[in-house]
């Protein structure tokens, strides 16, 4: 049996293809973190005083906080003084035209399949490209502007839309929410801001592409999406990083706000460098994502395809405050080699007739560990709340782990909460069946994996579904049956 296992192992051996480094001069903050680092970042961004004070407050709180120990992941202590908190390519920020962008940078994004040139872009997708600590370019700004949609980097938003930022920043995730959110609040350098005005159906996918390039650097981005009453937006984030031997920290915060009858669909294809097959290097992906269905009949839907990172720690959540609001979480998390993932969601039912749906598909291979951790909370006033959770695990080989930690708290007896869970293995029988029909083992594994993850993949915007399917197959390097 073991020999068969290694056959599959060999078959799906693929390399991380985004591991290159762009050679560009960078403008960096000195290593380490203290108040002067924060003043440095704030000054670099020419921020107003209130923003600096907001950051310093977060920093002082962070100093008194402790790194959470409850996730089912193991890693050496992070030396927060050994990280560079700000690194920007030396080039004009907010270039007037694409010609102002460093050709090396443009090439980088071309290589990643992200063209900054609007003409060459996938039609119907506007992109904000963020490298290390800064946003390089945002496309389709003018077309979106005509509809009153604001789509820009967070730095620009702080300058140009301070009222909106002051109103909504940290309104969903308080600066002291958790250790990494506090750290992010203190040192975040850029990210995206989207504002969809009342009644506007955003005509294109909005997308941010994050790239870590510089070494020893942490990326701390901040994203805020506000959908006013009756509006709709679909947003996608993607990310990659070079292959480096050291671990790099990525601690992002994403906040979503949906007003009455508004809908936000947020999709992530996370492909940070996962480390090599011995577990050296890779990104620590410690992210806080939360949305609030603030208005009646509003809807927030998270879809994530998590294939990268050495360690993933994230729980995209929805606060269902508005009556009749809906929260959804669709997730595929793949771990291979030494990767560790502790991911899931929180659905907090506060309003009446609120509904949530959780579909989590964990795929573990190699010696990796994959945990689903989810909370469904129904408060006292949330009459007629409904939840359905489905958590499936697929194991490739016998050295990996799949764990499920579902927490359910129900304080209102009209609630209906359902939870289903399954664990299965890719069987030699399934592989052989495919082989017998002329399908090679590599393709067979891809078919089985994509079948398993189909319900989630179907939620992705069309433009990215195909790419994500390929990614799933590629990520399972060294996987086993």
């Amino acid at each position: 049996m073991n020999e068969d296992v290694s056959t599959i192992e060999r078959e799906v051996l693929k390399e991380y293809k985004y591991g290159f480094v762009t050679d560009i001069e960078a403008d960096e903050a000195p290593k380490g973190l203290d108040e002067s680092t924060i003043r440095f970042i704030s000054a670099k961004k020419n921020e107003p005083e209130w923003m600096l004070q907001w950051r310093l407050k977060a920093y002082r709180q962070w100093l008194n906080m402790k790194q959470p120990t409850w996730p089912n992941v193991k890693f050496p202590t992070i030396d927060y003084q050994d990280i560079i908190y700000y690194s920007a390519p030396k080039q004009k920020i907010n270039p007037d035209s694409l010609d102002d962008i460093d050709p090396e940078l443009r090439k980088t994004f071309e290589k990643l399949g992200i063209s900054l040139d609007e003409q060459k872009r996938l039609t119907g997708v506007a992109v904000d490209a963020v490298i290390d600590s800064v946003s390089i370019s945002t496309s389709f700004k003018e077309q979106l502007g005509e509809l009153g949609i604001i789509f820009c980097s967070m730095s620009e938003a702080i300058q140009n839309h301070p009222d909106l930022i002051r109103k909504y920043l940290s309104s969903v995730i308080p600066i002291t929410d958790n250790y990494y959110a506090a750290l992010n609040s203190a040192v975040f350098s850029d990210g995206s801001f989207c504002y969809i005005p009342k009644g506007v159906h955003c005509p294109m996918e909005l997308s941010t592409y994050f790239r870590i390039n510089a070494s020893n650097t942490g990326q701390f981005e901040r994203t805020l999406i506000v959908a006013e009453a009756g509006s709709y937006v679909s947003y996608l984030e993607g990310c990659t990083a070079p292959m480096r031997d050291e671990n790099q920290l990525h601690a992002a915060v994403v906040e979503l706000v949906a007003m009455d009858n508004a809908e936000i669909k947020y999709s992530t294809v996370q492909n940070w460098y996962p480390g090599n097959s011995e577990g050296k290097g890779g990104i620590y992906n410690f992210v806080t994502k939360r949305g609030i269905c603030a208005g009646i009949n509003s809807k927030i839907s998270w879809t994530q395809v998590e294939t990268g990172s050495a360690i993933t720690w994230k729980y995209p959540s929805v606060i269902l405050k508005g009556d009749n609001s809906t929260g959804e979480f669709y997730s595929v998390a793949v771990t291979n080699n030494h990767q560790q993932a502790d991911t899931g969601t929180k659905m907090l039912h506060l309003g009446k007739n609120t509904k949530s749906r959780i579909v989590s598909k964990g795929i573990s291979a190699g010696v990796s560990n994959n945990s689903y951790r989810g909370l469904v909370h129904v408060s006292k006033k949330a009459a007629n709340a409904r939840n359905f959770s489905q958590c499936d695990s697929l194991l490739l080989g016998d050295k990996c782990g799949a764990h499920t930690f579902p927490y359910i708290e129900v304080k209102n007896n009209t609630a209906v909460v359902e939870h289903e869970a399954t664990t299965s293995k890719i069987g030699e029988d399934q592989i052989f069946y495919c082989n017998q029909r002329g399908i090679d083992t590599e393709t067979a594994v891809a078919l089985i994996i994509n079948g398993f993850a189909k319900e989630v993949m179907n939620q992705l915007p069309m433009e990215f579904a195909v790419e994500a399917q390929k990614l799933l197959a590629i990520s399972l390097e060294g996987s086993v049956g």
Partner: protein
Amino acid sequence: MLNINNLHAGIEGKKILNGINLQIKPGEIHAIMGPNGSGKSTLASVLAGKEIYEVLEGSVDFLGKDLLELSPEARAAEGLFLAFQYPVEIPGLSTTNFVKTAVNQIRKYHGQEPLDAVAFLKMMKEKMALVNIAQPMLSRPLNEGFSGGEKKRNEVFQMAMLQPKLAILDETDSGLDIDAIRIVANGVMKLRNKDNAVLVVTHYQRLLDYIVPDFVHVLYNGRIVKSGTKELAYELEERGYDFIKNEVNILEPGI
């Protein structure tokens, strides 16, 4: 077409096939019958290339190629098809998608361009009519929640799509009621022509009422101990396998 010569094979150190000799020519239908544990399914699996079985001795020639040297997917591409006794389920993968992948990988093996959606659909419609299968079943995840009869009909549909030279039916009748057996068997018969061959592996004679064999072989203790025409199948049905066992044991008391 198929020439099995002195084939010995086993699994995890246990020997199951003890020198099989069998020749199949195009256009022929052969049946292999035998009591439980005689090695029928092992023979089918070894021919299809299931890796957990170890070939210890002997050779198999398939259309001029050394079959035992080929990977399972190459055997399939060369025209060997196994209708499984227990077709596996693959959740989330539709039969259509599965078969399309199979058809195109086999085309690739032969250096042909993949079929486009239109051509594939046309071919599918044709074969669906032939084996009497409806679209909804093909859109469902492969074999998931299928009844025994549906699974076997699905196997025959795949066979129709892949147009093998040699189809091995491994206990295709097991778990089916008489109506389902008839439907499945009729499907197989419609796919017959002078260039292809069928090897039916079965415990019971009843399937052979519909797939009428030219030759019947009795497998016992990993060897073909008796061969004959379809009359042999009736004799087995009537007298049971014990008479074969007795005959063999008298001739070779060591077994």
